[in-house]
């Protein structure tokens, strides 16, 4: 390791770093703006200036930019010398010439990197007496606020938005003192990762609009380590609360998972926690169909009585914690417990689990995905099903650029140089999906195929890699397969990505076979399978492959096998056709639903119990890579809301169920689950238990300058109430304790002296950009199985369903905003959710005689009832023309209203809807018309 001298002291530093990285990693305070640990250096802001001396005799030195200067053995620098300090001070003054100094009304204030750096360089007095520029701000959609006057032209925003995340609608306009960062014209920012601008921009130009609406300063937020429930990726988050409301979600750094960035579903989708549709009290349904409020004790007694007969069925949920699901399964018995998937999804998730469990290939985390040098995606529209992974693939295709840079001995942080060098050269990414994706711009080849044909392509690739004869397939497809097989075979770290979202088991099997063939051929191969929800994989691990499906339970309910059904955090009407769910609920006398927000299932219950949301409860979730992660309550649930596991445990105690007699705490439930369920045995490692103390004290949820605790309740009483105690976790609802160097799973917020902004993260990392000092959060439950490499290849012995004419295969088209149940109810996201639609290609449109905006009816062609002219359509939806849809496929907006009864992969007949009301254009103004 090179040794450098800084201000007379010698330090050992990491080779290949720049001086800024090295200084920050050493814990020295060197101001900076434009450098970002995930985006490298461009030397734009000149804030990180240091003095470099040629040798020991050089007493003048010269100013260099820390972020652009590589460390070298024997190099001599000064950070503290007058010349360096003076220069840095003048830079802040210059950058702020046009800055409006409006910190008191700025949403960044109190966590502003510009404030921190200004104080750090010691700049106090302004000398500029001229007029300041004033910019016109833009409307950028419901998520992000724009206040251009605060810009210091560091270029971080466009570097993130364009270079890192592939967005095309944000750019730097004009030049020198009238430079402007914005859109070509006002409008919603199109990138699914735009929300990261809030954290990337070091000033208050881009701020969180949902926070700005009901604002709280960072120091007044109560925060806890949490996990995003938006999809199965399991990004780590730090939600903040004030006055019993979730105010905002910030990224919680996890080197292996989300790194520095979240998607907008994750950042803005947690707003559902504040919904006015939340349940606050238990409700008992009266004969007139209305609900009467109960207190929690009375509710518990009702629940216990209903469970006495022992004829109880339970439906868990892939969006509920492992602990809640485990207890419910224990209460009702494994054979009466359905994990809460749809019939179509259940075997797919189970398959995703078993394929990964038995695969010789590595199940990669996101950091490892970024290292892939050739990627094949089968059937997933990642930006809409596992958004953070799409962002990771944008980095993986840059590995080619890094290779080219290495040949020229360019350091990997020389961002501008490397981008210029590589231009459009990329590592190969191939995507085979049912229609276009948001990653198409960086693919070497993207092809639209029906799910069965995606599988055929996959099996052909596997055979080619394994050197085995290829099944009969289309010549064009074969040529594609050859190109892809060659690219994967030639890669050092090939990755195959697939998942449940196109509803096809064979697609996933094909993916698994490719990665297995690669392993056999000695490539270090990776296999990653996307599952739908935050704890989908945990459910498969909990139940194994033998759990009853929804319709199996429904059949048994019809045979009057059950007196009581308990549904935990699941809206069954999103899981199956209405008739089946209606019948299930009608055939069981007591339907107890535990959920946080009103939904159709809850409304159909006989007893409704209010569940605490993820932000008010503790729970373990297993992400798609098999990482068990813990979320902690950010705040105490109001009124009678309780965590689902609390309701269930209390009921089981009342029932005197032997297995729970020793369970008192959340941690006891986790431990019991770990000891009973082999696949979940590692979950206790997700986070330390409630006995953990950080150097003898708890970890505080409130910052050391949390203010107004008395004032908050002064309208009720001027006595400050006692802070709630937390018996269940190592965190405290208090300012007292130590937020430093604890395990990464217990990081509630970042702050360090002099570093109020999120950049204080540097102080929590072992070195800048590297894992947290306390270790990376989460416990991996899926480890590669070395033994099975030599298993024989399976032939692609599936027969694709033959379509009758006039029928199309229904393929889901997911939307980052809308397809996921809860985030779609966050007010800001709701503004971006479309109403349900079908996507059809031109051939289909012509054969149906429809154009964009028309309506179509989707009909199940059931031979027995075909003559029945009165049969209601499965759905009637608006048409969108998308000519990239694969032949024979029709896309439907999965999860959006009106599509609930469509079953993935089923063939449906389409016909033009008569009397369809075309949506009229949004009329702004008051000249009549239906939308006014």
């Amino acid at each position, binding site marked *: 390791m090179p040794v450098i001298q800084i201000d007379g002291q010698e330090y050992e530093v990491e080779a290949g770093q720049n001086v800024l990285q090295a200084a920050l990693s050493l814990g020295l305070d060197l101001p900076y703006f434009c450098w970002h640990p995930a985006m490298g250096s461009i030397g734009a802001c000149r804030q990180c200036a240091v003095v470099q001396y040629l040798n020991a005799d050089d007493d003048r030195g010269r100013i260099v930019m820390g972020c652009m200067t590589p460390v070298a053995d024997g190099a001599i620098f000064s950070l503290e010398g007058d010349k360096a300090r003076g220069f840095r001070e003048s830079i802040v003054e210059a950058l702020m010439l046009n800055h409006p100094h409006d910190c008191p009304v700025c949403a960044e204030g109190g966590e502003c990197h510009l404030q921190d750096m200004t104080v750090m360089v010691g700049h106090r007095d302004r000398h500029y007496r001229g007029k300041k520029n004033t910019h016109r701000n833009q409307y950028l959609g419901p998520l992000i606020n724009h206040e251009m006057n605060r810009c210091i032209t560091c270029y971080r925003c466009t570097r993130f938005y364009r270079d890192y995340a592939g967005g095309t*609608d944000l750019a730097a306009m004009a030049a020198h003192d009238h430079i402007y960062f914005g859109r070509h014209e006002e409008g919603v920012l199109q990138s699914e990762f735009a929300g990261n601008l809030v954290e990337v921009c070091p000033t208050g130009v881009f701020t969180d609009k949902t926070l700005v609406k009901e604002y709280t300063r960072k120091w007044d937020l109560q925060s806890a380590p949490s996990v995003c429930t938006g999809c199965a990726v399991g990004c780590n988050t730090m939600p903040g609360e004030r006055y019993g409301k979730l105010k905002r979600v910030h990224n919680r750094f996890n080197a292996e998972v989300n790194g520095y960035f979240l998607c907008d579903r994750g950042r803005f989708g947690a707003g559902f926690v504040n919904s006015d549709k939340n349940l606050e009290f238990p409700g008992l349904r009266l004969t007139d169909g209305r609900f009467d409020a109960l207190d929690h004790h009375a509710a518990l007694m009702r629940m216990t009585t209903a469970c006495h007969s022992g004829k109880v069925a339970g439906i868990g949920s892939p969006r509920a914690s492992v602990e809640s699901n485990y207890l419910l399964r224990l209460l009702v018995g494994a054979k009466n417990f359905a994990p809460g998937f749809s019939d179509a999804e259940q075997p797919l998730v189970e398959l995703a689990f078993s394929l990964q469990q038995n695969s010789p290939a590595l199940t990669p985390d996101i950091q490892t995905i970024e290292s892939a040098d050739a990627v094949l995606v089968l059937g997933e529209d990642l930006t809409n099903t596992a958004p953070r992974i799409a962002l990771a693939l944008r980095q993986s295709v840059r590995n080619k650029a890094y290779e080219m840079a290495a040949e020229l001995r360019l350091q990997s942080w020389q961002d501008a140089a490397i981008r210029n060098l590589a231009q459009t050269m990329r590592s190969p990414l191939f995507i085979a999906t049912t229609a276009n994706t948001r990653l198409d711009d960086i693919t070497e080849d993207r092809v639209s195929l029906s799910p069965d044909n995606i599988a055929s392509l996959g099996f052909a690739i596997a055979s080619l890699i394994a050197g085995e004869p290829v099944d009969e397939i289309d010549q064009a497809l074969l040529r594609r397969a050859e190109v892809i097989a060659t690219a994967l075979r030639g890669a050092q770290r090939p990755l195959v990505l697939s998942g449940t979202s196109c509803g096809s088991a064979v697609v996933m099997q094909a993916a698994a076979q490719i990665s297995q063939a690669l392993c056999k051929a000695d490539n270090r191969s990776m296999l990653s399978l996307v599952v739908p929800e935050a704890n989908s994989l945990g459910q498969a691990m909990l139940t194994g492959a033998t759990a009853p499906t929804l319709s199996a339970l429904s059949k048994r309910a019809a045979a009057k096998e059950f007196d009581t059904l308990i549904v935990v955090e699941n809206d069954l009407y999103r899981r199956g056709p209405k008739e089946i769910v209606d019948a299930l609920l009608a055939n069981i006398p007591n339907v107890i639903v535990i959920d946080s927000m009103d939904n159709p299932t809850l409304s159909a219950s006989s007893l409704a119990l209010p569940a605490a949301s993820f932000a008010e409860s503790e729970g373990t979730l297993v992400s798609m890579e098999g990482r068990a992660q813990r979320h902690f309550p950010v705040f105490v649930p109001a009124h009678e809301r309780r965590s689902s596991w609390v309701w269930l445990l209390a009921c089981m105690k009342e029932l005197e169920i032997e297995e729970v007699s020793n369970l008192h705490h959340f941690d006891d439930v986790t431990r019991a689950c770990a000891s009973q369920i082999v696949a979940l045995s590692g979950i206790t490692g997700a986070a330390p238990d409630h006995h953990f103390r950080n150097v003898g004290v708890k970890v505080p949820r409130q910052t050391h300058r949390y203010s107004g605790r008395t004032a908050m309740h002064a309208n009720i009483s001027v006595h400050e109430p006692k802070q709630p105690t937390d018996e269940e976790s190592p965190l405290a609802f208090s300012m007292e304790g130590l937020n430093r160097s604890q395990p990464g799973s217990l990081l509630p917020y970042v702050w360090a002296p002099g570093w109020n902004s999120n950049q204080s993260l540097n102080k929590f990392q072992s070195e800048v950009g590297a894992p947290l000092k306390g270790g990376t959060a989460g416990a991996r439950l899926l480890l590669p199985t070395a033994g099975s490499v030599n298993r024989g290849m399976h032939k692609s012995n599936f027969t694709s369903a033959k379509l009758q004419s006039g029928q199309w295969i229904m393929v889901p088209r997911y939307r980052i905003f809308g397809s996921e149940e809860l985030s779609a109810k966050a007010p800001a996201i709701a503004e971006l959710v479309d109403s349900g639609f079908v996507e059809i290609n031109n051939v289909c449109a012509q054969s149906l005689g429809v154009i964009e905006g028309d309506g179509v009816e989707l009909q199940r062609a059931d031979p027995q009832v075909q003559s029945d002219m009165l049969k209601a359509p499965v759905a009637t939806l608006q048409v969108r023309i998308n000519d990239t849809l694969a032949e024979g496929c029709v896309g439907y907006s999965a999860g959006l209203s009106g599509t609930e009864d469509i079953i993935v992969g089923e063939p449906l007949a389409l016909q033009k809807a008569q009397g369809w009301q075309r949506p009229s254009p949004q009329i702004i103004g008051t000249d009549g018309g239906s939308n006014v």
Partner: protein
Amino acid sequence: MTMRQNLIAVLSEGEIAEIDAELAHVPIPAGAAIDALKIVQAHRGWISDESLKAIAQHLGMSAAELDGIATFYTLIFRRPVGEKVILLCNSVTCWMKGCDSLQQNISDQLGIGMGETTADNAYTLLPMTCLGACDKAPVLMIGDDLHEDVDPQSVAQLFQPGAEEQ
């Protein structure tokens, strides 16, 4: 060819042909962005939002990316200009040699300030940082013609009817 037909509504065949000729010389279409802007400006005098979007589409860029380039260069006009643009140098040498009073002179004569266009749409007055003729300062350009060693008297003649023909 539907895409091409869509474009013609905004860009003429001639413009497209000229842009395509530039495209033949660059490895990445975006590399011809400045040339494409100059071509369309030569035909239309300025770059409207519609032109910008059409050029961006033709080059496979986003409007924001191309606007970033268009607005970076002071000689790409994103607002309409008069038939002739007066570029008055106000950099150091010309400033020392009295460009400020020249500007006053022009403004008085044409009734427009910096950045403005005459009511008859004949002239737009813009500042320019060094026209590269410092030895003949103060200088200005009217359209494509450079005028050197300008003084208040000669400037008066520049805008007389028929001045161009001289």
